[in-house]
Structure formats: structure tokens, C-alpha cells
């Protein structure tokens, strides 16, 4: 049987046009626009809004198949397998010094705190990606040296940005004590 050239679908031209329009939009996006925002994963802890830098987030997985580790420090929820590795699930509210919560956490955020190993943090809901204005983040960071940077957004909305390396540092120093 002779091979026939595949026919172009009828909507191909339309699709191409749409893609071209999109590409055009992206091309015309001011180059500094991306850099103006720090992209974060925002989620609630009790009544408050917390955020993690999106580039540290590796996955959001359901909070199940976690094996509790008796005798472990209280902030340790347990251990679980993630992509063939064994990682620790930690209670974010506990790491933050004991916060209340509205819903029992059902999600684990697998994050890379930058130490070459992954950890999972619990959260009440699947986070949503949000852009925080870089200028405000930097300004807030210049005033804070802690594990949490409080950022006030337009409309007086407050987001607590979690500085993962500092949070983990604090945890290890607490453990040593």
C-alpha cells in the first residue's frame, strides 16, 4: 500500500494562528515582567496565608502512606517514599511554633530546602501559584532575618513567606537543644 501524505486537519490554520498570536503576546511581554514577581505557592495555615517559593516546590501529594516514626521529634509526622527516596514529612504548623488549623491537612508539599535532600511539609489545601511583587519581597526581607518574612500586599493582605533554609536551620538547632 502506498503511503499517502497526511492531510492537514481543517482547524490547523486556525490553530496555527492562535499559537502565533500567543507567541506574539509572549514576545511582546516586557522582559522585566517575569522578574518583577517572585512566584510562590500560597496556602492557608489556620487563619493565615503562607507561601513557599515556587522554585523550591517539587510536588504536592496526598497525605497518605506516611509511616509514623515513634520516638521522633514532635514536628516529625512520619516518613514516606517519594520517587524511590525515603523522605521525612514534617508538620508545618509545628515548625512554625504551634499554629491552629482549620482543616486537618490532607496534602504534603515536597520541597527542596536547598540542602540537597527533599522534605515534605503538610498543608491544609493544594496551594495556588501567586506572584508576589519582588520589590515588596525584598523590602520585607531586608527587615527580617527569621524563617518567616511577612509581606503586605496591596489591599493590606498579608502573606507569610516561608524562608525554607532558615526554617530548616531553626528546626535543626531546636533539635540540638
Amino acid at each position, binding site marked *: 500500500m502506498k503511503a499517502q501524505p497526511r492531510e492537514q486537519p481543517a482547524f490547523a490554520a486556525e490553530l496555527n494562528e492562535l499559537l502565533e498570536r500567543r507567541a506574539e503576546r509572549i514576545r511582546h511581554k516586557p522582559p522585566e515582567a517575569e522578574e518583577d514577581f517572585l512566584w510562590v505557592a500560597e496556602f492557608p495555615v489556620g487563619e493565615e496565608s503562607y507561601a513557599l517559593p515556587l522554585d523550591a516546590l517539587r510536588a504536592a501529594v496526598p497525605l497518605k502512606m*506516611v509511616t509514623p516514626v*515513634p520516638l521522633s521529634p514532635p514536628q516529625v509526622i512520619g516518613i514516606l517514599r517519594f520517587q524511590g527516596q525515603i523522605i521525612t514529612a514534617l508538620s508545618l504548623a509545628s515548625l512554625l511554633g504551634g499554629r491552629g488549623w482549620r482543616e486537618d491537612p490532607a496534602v504534603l508539599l515536597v520541597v527542596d530546602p536547598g540542602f540537597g535532600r527533599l522534605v515534605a511539609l*503538610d498543608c491544609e489545601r493544594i496551594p495556588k501559584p501567586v506572584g508576589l511583587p519582588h520589590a515588596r519581597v525584598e523590602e520585607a526581607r531586608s527587615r527580617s532575618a527569621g524563617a518567616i518574612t511577612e509581606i503586605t500586599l496591596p489591599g493590606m493582605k498579608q502573606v507569610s513567606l516561608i524562608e525554607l533554609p532558615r526554617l530548616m536551620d531553626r528546626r535543626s538547632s531546636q533539635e540540638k537543644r
Partner: protein
Amino acid sequence: MLDPMLEQLLAGFVDESQEIYDRVTRSLIELEKEPAQGKRFDELARGLHTLKGSAATLGLDELAEFAHRMEDVILPLRGSLQPLPAELADAVLRSLDVWMARLRATAAKAELPELQSSLELLSKAKNGRGWAPTAPPSRPEEPADSAPPLPAEEAISGESWRVSTRQVIGLLHEVERLRELRLRVDERKRELERTLAELARLGGALATAEVRALLSNLGRALGGDGEEAADIVASMEDGLKAISTMPVRTVIEPLRRAVRDLCKSSGKLARLAVVGAEVSLDRRVLEQLRGPMVQLVRNAVDHGLEMPEVREARGKHREGALTIRVEQQGNMLFIEIADDGAGLDLARIKDAALSHGFVPPEELALMGPAQLQQIIFRPGFTTRTDVTEISGRGVGLDVVRNQIQALQGHVEVQSTPGQGTRFVLTLPAELGSSPVLVVRCGEHQFGLPMVAVESSRPARSAELHLGRARAQLEHREQLIALQDLGALTGLRQPEAPQEGQPLLIVASQGRRVALSVDEVIGDKELVVRPLPVEVRDLPAYQGAATLARGELILILRADWLVNLERKSESGLAGTRRALVVDDSLTARALHRTALEAGGYVVHTASNARQALEQLRHAAYDVMVCDIGMEEMDGFQLTAAVRQQAQADSMPILLVSARDSDSDRQRGQAVGADGFLTKKDCVSGRLLSEVSAVMARRKGAT
């Protein structure tokens, strides 16, 4: 700038040279004690010659010339009836160090160490300070310039490949995963067989016959696939083990040089004997062992062995005996490093601990010899008042212990005054799987290394000796300690075993304990992997393994189980106990955080049934209970507790994700003492509410 081809060959040459370096070093040390002739001398000469030839092949002329100068010093001694003079051996050993360092620096494109001082040292040695050959060389040596250079064979022959460690380790991890997968296939097959049996029981004959036949065929096919996968995994593991293991000798041999050099500098005499150097180990384990072993051997010479005249005066041989014994039992590796020196000086340890404030005087006064010996592992501890090149800085044994713990192992020390000291390192030896006995305790499953489980038996009340302070079991006409695994792991208060409850006899390090568990699930071949950093320091666990459905199981350490010296929480008089009941893992963790911070001992239950079970066996000062649980909610649990005679007056605080007046009223109606929403469960608030409900209940009674 190095030629890329040469660069590639250099990496292989460094490894090859390291092996030759080790052999030459060993020969030099041996020839200091025996006549410079025979096989040992031939090995030395051949080694130096190969270094020279290979360096010349790769165009490393300076290194070739340097090796030639070492040959010049050594070869005239061939056939001597005398051992090699110490200063000559010293000169060649030091030159070898520089030779190796220069080669490594060349490969790493780093700054090259200078050769001049080594060349001068060799020159002095050659010109015979106090040395003269007692016999002429037995055969003429080839002149250096006509010597056919020996190629760096493996690196250039194409018979071997150079693969980075990272790649091999990556492959090892994948094989470990494959083995886990294979184990899961086995488990799936068993599940299928159980399903088939159940189907046969339920479905009668004809209606399900066709489905059962299909499933049965599927089970057989799955079994066949599982077996084939097992063969592949075993073959891959064997192949990888051959690549990734090395004999312990590679770590031990350089220690001979260390012992020799330390003896030279300290004026002591020592002979190192090695047993079990042929045991092959994972390179990753060996790499980690190198530092601790060097430290322990250095300590043995510096701290352990006495000066020759002191030894003589004590009736010992002038030369101290150092022994390294390596033994592998199942998946456990035991390395013993012993000396026949003075033993640990407990009085000096005590003085140093006191003067440096390591232990308060009142605590020190209560310490027995075993506890005093443990002080030497504390960071910064030293009995030395002066700092020498070898020791006195107090960094050593704590590092040894940390490194061995990082390998999931532990260090023990045993010492007898005047007779010597023995350090025993115990650690998991191998990759791959090992047999594990899976047991259940409450809702938790644990694994126990089968090698440590001597036997299992049902509890018989006639054989139990239950006292207020301890429980014991009659076992083979002896009384052995009886421990409740649930209490040991902090899951519940100690419970005396029920009639028929499974007891495991666990043995490790010469100690034996009877362990009561709720159920013995069975033995499995599991791949035990290290725990993540956040929980790696917990002494109770060797690691974790993956079960059939992908969930993890914690593997207990046998030595931890038999260690009866740890403090049991049940022994803490006056401690308040709280039971947290919540089906959310994180809620339990959060309540525990808050309550432990307030000084409570916290036990948890993930459902009402389990909570009632725990309340039947133990008393609690307060119960914090979630309302929204499946099967039996917090209201029903509270009502059930109020019906139990032993817990009817226990304060109960209900917590809920919902803030609802009707829930509060309903809670009060069933007998709860307080109500708190989870969003209000910040640490301080939970503690104050717990205190409030306890006070209310106390007031009421």
C-alpha cells in the same frame, strides 16, 4: 594544558598507582624487620619499576625520574642479610608520599608539590648515613634509560571502562528499587491467591469457574515473571557487588604505615595483626570507615600502648600488639580494634571530665566504669593536658562515633586496666536484602532483623515474673528481662503480656531480652535503607524498608532493644500523661508538640477503638479527642469512656475543625469537660484548656 587523551588516562593511572603505592609501602615496612631479599624485596622493586615505567609512558618525565631515584636507593640493597635501615625506609616512604601527591595534583591540575627536598633526602639516604650494603646486588639491574616502560595496562588496553562512582551508585539504587519491586510482585501474587481462595469460598462452583481459571492462570504467569525478575535482580546484584565492593584490606593496609610512623615518632614499638582483611565490603561503607579506623589505631598507639621499657617492667613484650579483626555475620559487620596496652585510665577520665565541666560532680560520683568509659566519646573530651601532632585536641572519638552512627552503626568500648582496650564497631555491611521479621504493635508495624531473633513463643503466665519495677520471663532455666515493644517505642504504657501473646527472644551483643508484641506477621526479605537525616539519629531504628504496597516499615535495632539501661518513661514519677485521639496524623503530631512542650508524656491513638483499648490497660490524666472520626466519633468515644469504671473521671477535651454550639452542647451532654476548635489549638491555648479541664474535673470530684 594536558592533552585530553592523557587527561583520561591519568585518572586510571592515579588509581593504579595508588594500588602500587600501597604494596610498596607494605613491602618497605616489612623489609624494615626482615632481610632485604626474597619475594618481598622483589615486590618492592617491581612496584617502583612499574611506577617509573608507567609515568614515562604517559610523558610524566619528572615522576619517572623521581621513581628512578627511589629505585637507585633501594636496588643496591637487594640480597642484603640485614633489614632496610630505618632512615632509608623513611626517605623512600616520604618520597613515595610526595610522588603520589604530585601525581594526584597533576591529574587534578592543582599546584604541584615540590620534589627537591625529597630528592635531597633520597640522595642522603643513598650516600649511606650509617648504612652500607652487606652484600652486593644479586643480579644486575636494568639501567633506567633502557628499562622498557610498563604501560598503565588497564587504562589503555580497552579491557576495562572507567565509570564514575556516581553512576555506579545510581545503578545500585535502581537495583535496590528493582528488588523492592520484585518483592512487591511476590506479594501481589499472594494477594491474588488469597482472592482466588475467597472467590472459591463465596462463589460456589460454576458461576465463578471461568473467572477463577483466568485468575489462576494470571497468578501462575505472575509467579513465573516474579521468579524471572528474581533471577535478574540476583544476577544484577552479584555483578554490581563485584564492581562496588573491595576487600577491607584496602583500608587496613595503609594503617600499617600509620602505625610504623607513629611508633617512630613516639618511641613505641607495635606490631599490627589483621584478621579478616579479605572480607569484601561496599566501597561506600569502606570510604566511611577509613577515617574512624585511622583514628582508633592512632589512639591505640598514642594513648593505649606503653613505652617499651614500661611494658617490660609490667611483664609484657616490649612490642605492643595491635589487632584488627573483621567479621561479617549476615548483614552485620563487626570490626574490632584492640591493643594490649594500659587500658582506659578511669581516674584520669574522671578528673578530666570534672575539670572541663563535662559532667557535674554529683552525677560523676554515681557513674560506674561503663558510664565513665562512655565519656571519651563526648565532643571535645581529652585526658591530655598537652596538644601533640597526634592527639590532645579532643576531636577524635566523637567524630568516630558520629561517622559510625551515620552508617547506621555504633561503637562500643571495653577496657581492662593493665590489659588493654577494645573498640568494637558494629554496622550494616551490605546492600541488598536481608531477612526481617515483621511484627505488629497497636496499629504500628515494625521489622526486626531475623539474625537477632532467636525464637518466638506464646506467653504463659506461669513463666512470667511480674514485679512493680520489672518484668521477667523464665527462658531456658534463666530469668531474662521482659519488655513491651509498645512501651519501648513510646506508643503506650507498659503492658503485661496476655496469656498466649507472642513473645520474641531477641539477642544482641551477648544480651538477651523477651519482647512482647501484639502479633507476629511473618518474615520477609526486605531491602533496609537508611532513614532520612531528620530521623537518622534515633537510636531505635536501623532503617526503613518498603512493603508490598509501597508503604514503609521501620526496622528496629536489636542492640537498642536489648539495652536495658535507657530510662523508661514509665519510671518518671509524677509525669502527667495525656492520650490524644485523632484520625489525622498531623493533628496528632500538633497536639503532641503542644502537650510535650507542657511536660506531658503523650500517647496517641488514631481511632476510638484503639483509644478504648489503651484506656483498658493504662490510666491517663487527660484525653484530647477529635470529634470527627470515622466509625466511632468523639461524642461516642466520650460516652463509652464515661461508662468505663477506670476512666469515668478522666478529664476529656474535645477538639473539632468546626466551631459549633450544638457540638459544644452535645459534648457536654455526653460527659466532655471542654471544647476547643482546631484553629484555636495554638500551643499555649491547648495547654491552658487542658489545665482548665483538669482543674474543673478535680474541683468536681
